[in-house]
């Protein structure tokens, strides 16, 4: 009974974090499609909901593991000297709950102060903070932590470089031609091929692997590239047929009309790639909400501290539901403001930005690094700006991003420390007893 209460309380906290992600961040991932008017707000919300949910349930476990055990080594806490029976799991549980609470509180404080924050940075800072207080400086995997922080620098940078290159290619090969329409007919299928390979790899290679386990090795192993290539090829052929039909006889229109037609060809592509961004966003960011929850559920049900934990699917589903709920309640409104503010984002720019962000976030997800999808997207947009693709980009935003790192990580860490100490003083005995009662053998 007591265990259930603990799980329920932390699940509510996790749900709240997931709700926050859905309410604030998801609008960014669909921003390219909404801003370029390639999709209506209503459909953007529905598509984002489906893709975020799929991403978090199918791929979310990777980064969840990092948040759960990658930053603070659970065995370090278990091997602390002078712990009574059942105290180690109790400490770990309180620590994870404190991290979750700290991240959620900081998110609210920051939003109230009008600061842009990333849930990824909050949770990483919070977990590291509790680890330092609970088991000393050495309990934190500083090597891993270094990798994570490096990925925060590198992901916007990589997004920027990819965005720059992709947009340069699109503009060199299509937009800057004397007659963009025939150029679009011959080049766009290649863009579609590349895009679909990336998207398919994202879903098959990472997603199905988690779902099917060993059963479908041929499709999730090296076969993934083959599958992706086939899907890419088929989509490219279909795209070629459709584009040719749509653009037939339009080769000699005046340039502005040709450009508009070409942008219209890109519109469906930007929808597909934005869905991929939403998918990878769900995959990466759901961990921020359910990583600590996964740890708590495991401790509460086994009363032991382990390194290998199977992340229960229901935990990921809960995270996914939270994101969808946030999207349905507040995300709609945020999506609309984003859509009206970024009208400069034409479909050709949107495709470049979304593909760049998808690739970057997926690589980071695969390396189990919790990065900010929004920051990666910001990097990609700045890259397109450097390629002279956008009319006015606010460079101050980069300063905000740096600011958000430098403030969020310590702030969330300090909050987690405070909550952890409070929890230790007030709840340690209760939690220990509850755990031991539930599983007398472990005590």
């Amino acid at each position, binding site marked *: 009974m007591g265990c259930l209460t603990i799980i329920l309380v932390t699940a509510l906290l996790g749900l709240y974090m997931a709700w926050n992600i859905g309410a*604030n961040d998801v*609008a*960014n991932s669909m*921003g390219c499609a909404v*801003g370029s008017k390639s999709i209506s707000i209503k459909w953007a919300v529905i598509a984002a909901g489906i893709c975020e949910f799929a991403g978090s349930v199918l791929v979310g476990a990777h980064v969840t593991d990092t948040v759960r055990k990658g930053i603070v080594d659970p065995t370090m806490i278990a091997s602390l000297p002078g712990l009574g029976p059942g105290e180690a799991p109790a400490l770990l549980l309180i620590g994870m709950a404190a991290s979750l609470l700290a991240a959620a509180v900081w998110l609210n404080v920051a*939003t109230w102060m*009008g*600061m*842009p924050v990333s849930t990824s940075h909050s949770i990483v800072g919070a977990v590291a903070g509790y680890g330092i207080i609970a088991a000393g400086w050495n309990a934190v995997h500083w090597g891993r932590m270094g990798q994570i922080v490096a990925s925060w620098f590198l992901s916007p940078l990589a997004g920027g470089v990819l965005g720059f290159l992709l*947009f340069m290619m699109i*503009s*060199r090969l299509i*937009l*800057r*031609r*004397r*007659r963009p329409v025939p150029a679009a007919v011959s080049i766009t299928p290649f863009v579609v091929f590349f895009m679909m390979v990336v998207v398919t790899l994202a879903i098959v290679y990472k997603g199905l692997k988690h779902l099917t386990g060993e059963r479908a090795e041929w499709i999730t192993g090296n076969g993934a590239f083959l599958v992706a290539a086939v899907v890419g090829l088929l989509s490219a052929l279909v795209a070629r047929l459709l584009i040719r039909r749509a653009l037939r006889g339009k080769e000699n229109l005046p*340039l*502005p009309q040709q*450009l508009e037609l070409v942008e219209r060809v890109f519109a469906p592509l930007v929808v597909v790639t934005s869905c991929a961004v939403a998918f990878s966003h769900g995959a990466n960011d759901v961990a921020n909400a359910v990583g600590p929850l996964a740890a708590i559920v495991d401790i509460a049900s086994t009363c032991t501290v382990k390194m290998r934990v199977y992340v229960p699917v229901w935990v990921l589903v809960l995270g996914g539901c939270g994101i969808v709920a946030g999207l349905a309640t507040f995300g709609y409104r*945020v999506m609309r*403001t*984003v859509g009206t*503010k*970024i*009208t*400069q*984002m*034409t479909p050709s720019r949107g495709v470049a930005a979304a593909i760049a962000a998808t690739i970057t976030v997926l690589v980071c997800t695969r390396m189990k690094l919790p990065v900010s999808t*929004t*920051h990666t*997207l*910001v990097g990609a*947009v*700045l890259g397109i*700006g450097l*390629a*002279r*693709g*956008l*009319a*006015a*980009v*606010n*460079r*101050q*935003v980069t300063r*905000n*991003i740096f600011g958000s790192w430098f403030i969020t990580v310590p702030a969330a860490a300090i909050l987690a420390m405070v909550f952890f100490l409070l929890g230790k003083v007030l709840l340690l005995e209760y939690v220990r007893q509850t755990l031991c009662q539930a599983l007398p053998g472990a005590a």
Partner: protein
Amino acid sequence: MSLIKELFGQSPFGPLVEHTKKVHECVKLVEPLSQALMKGDDEEIHRLQDRVSKLEYEADVIKHEIREQLPRRYFLPVGRDELENFLRCQDKIADSVQDFAVVLFIRKTRVHPELKDLFLEFVEQVLKVSNTLNEAAVELQNLAETAFGGAEAASVLDQISGLGEQEWNADRMQRRLSRKIYSLEHELDPVTILFYDKMLHTLSRVANEAENTGDLLRAMILKG
């Protein structure tokens, strides 16, 4: 608070094209103004002067709007200085047209019959220069769409490259007209000569500023 939302400013290129069009509307009135001057139709001059003044004011409003929406923190695909100078220079074209209209409006000056042909020829050349600029400058929106490169940029640069020679021709015609005016100095009263001089001066400024605006447009395209 959404970073993505804050990332984007308003595009200045749409309003810049608006400004170009407004200035050109102003310039187009030079022709009817000159015709009215030839005919000595003072009422028509009065009416056109009002119209020019209104258009010039509207161009000014657009200019200020563009400046206000472009704080320093925005990163642009063209040099900021070039863009601001382009806007200022293009605005001066409308100013010069207004000055010309005012010169016609404040004094009922009549054009000597022997000057009429040369005068109209000069006006035509001035309009040619500003037309060339107008055709190039209205492409700014398309230039932004094509990221200031490729075929579109090349064709605009090509258009601009004609400006120098056209302006030089306008200068030559102005000199010819001036010589003609002073050859008639014994038949004309000094104040009329003064006003002829003012007309020539303001008209040549229209061509001059158009050429300068074209130079800045080129600088915008070439420099990222």
